[in-house]
């Protein structure tokens, strides 16, 4: 599964995208926990989950969105365009 990071999440993780084996992660939140267990960089990126937004296959979702079968999961802060 392709996992993408944007803005300060990208900076803290130190990567814009990476291939991740989701294992038995059923939701975006499960995936976050799996990542945090892997490395401190993820703990820093995901320290405030209230400030984390999620898209699954380029559709806005949230931490409880199912990721089963998803090709692409993205994590980013609240958007600030316009």
């Amino acid at each position, binding site marked *: 599964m392709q996992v*993408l990071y*944007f*803005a*300060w999440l*990208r900076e803290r993780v130190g990567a814009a995208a990476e291939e991740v084996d989701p294992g038995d992660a059923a939701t975006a939140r499960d995936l976050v926990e799996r990542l945090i267990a892997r490395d401190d960089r993820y703990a820093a990126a995901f320290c405030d989950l209230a400030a984390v937004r999620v*898209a699954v296959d*380029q*559709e*806005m979702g949230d931490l409880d969105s199912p990721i089963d079968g998803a090709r692409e999961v*993205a994590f*980013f*802060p*609240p*958007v*600030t*365009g*316009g």
Partner: protein
Amino acid sequence: MHVSVQREDFDIAAEISTLTAGDRDIGAVVSFTGLVREMTPKGPISEMALEHYPGMTERALEEIAAQAQQRWPLQGLRIIHRHGPLAPGDRIVLVLTASRHRQAAFEAAEFLMDYLKTKAPFWKKEGDGGKARWVDARDSDDNAARRWGGEGT
């Protein structure tokens, strides 16, 4: 084509001409242009970088455009959003709406901007020559989007 996400600047007059060309049933055209402000709540800035999510950005803007067209009788609609490095005074975003009457054109343009501000995956980073910081989302933008009802922000 309703939506463009691009590094290049845009030409408002040319976009309006394209949008209204050949349609003599348009009575009202509204444009909104967003510009980079030099002064921010945290002090003056000298540059801004706009990051976005290629692919999803276009999809989100097309979805917002489709919602506006369902809600209002629009003869035309256009969204252009820039990304990449920008400076104070630079144009960031253009929204155009064309309709028979002014109320639909005004409301649709406001709706597009409110939804774009809360649903389109863009992130601003402001710099003052030394430090650079990510811009925080504003509660007022969430509230503005909420007034249109629907599935929330």
